């Protein structure tokens, strides 16, 4: 059961972030940081199927995390987080077509490793 939850967290987290990025890129850049632009952005988000799907996936991930935390300690949830970093970077490269060169790979690998160390 625990490992199923870890898998659900990793997959939903990854799916959520990738869908959110795709949806927000399609929606267009937030041009300005004032309240009007933010309000306009929010109004478009509620009609943005990709972002709504992304937020849904993140919600599932959140409740899976709560369930996991209720049956095991925090450090058991960490492999899911670390795995998400690597998975998301892979999808950013191959689906979102971002340029992921060695610096970003090194960065994300260090972060994933650091997250594991912080959980020990």
């Amino acid at each position, binding site marked *: 059961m625990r490992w199923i939850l870890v898998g659900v967290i990793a997959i939903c987290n990854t799916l959520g972030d990738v869908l959110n990025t795709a949806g927000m890129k399609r929606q267009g850049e*937030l041009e300005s940081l004032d309240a009007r632009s933010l309000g306009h952005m929010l109004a478009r988000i509620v009609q943005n199927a990709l972002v709504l799907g992304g937020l849904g996936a993140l919600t599932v991930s959140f409740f899976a995390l709560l369930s996991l935390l209720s049956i095991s300690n925090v450090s058991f949830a960490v492999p899911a987080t670390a795995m998400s970093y690597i998975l998301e970077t892979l999808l950013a490269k191959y689906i979102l077509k971002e340029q992921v060169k060695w610096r970003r790979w090194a960065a994300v690998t260090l972060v994933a490793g650091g997250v594991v160390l912080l959980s020990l």
Partner: protein
Amino acid sequence: MKPESPVEVHKTRLLTLLVIGGNVVGNVLLSHGMRQVGKIVSASPLDYIRAFANPWAVLGVLVLIFWMISDLALLSRADLSFVLPITASSYVLIAIAGHFLLGERISSIHWAGIVVITLGVVLAEETPARTTNGRREALL
């Protein structure tokens, strides 16, 4: 992709700081609130809703909602593969804030984790925030 103007780079930086700050402040407030609420080990959603009677927990949740919105705004301007490692600096800041504000202990292994994450953040900072073009090509 043409290089972004300094003003645009500045906006992305500012949003990045808001995302990191929102995450840190939201988590510290929520953590402080949940400690006052006490341990919740329950399958009942009602027990979790009880936590919302605590003002610190409510404030934490509100800040985390702001964090989520600013994260979406940042993703409209920057690559996911840039945002992920950069915003991981919130782990470092949460650990340090937990140490100084909530009296949590940081072991030597945790310090090692903090150093390793910081190295990752610095490396990612040296890459351009966005490597994709206009709004259409990226995707699905």
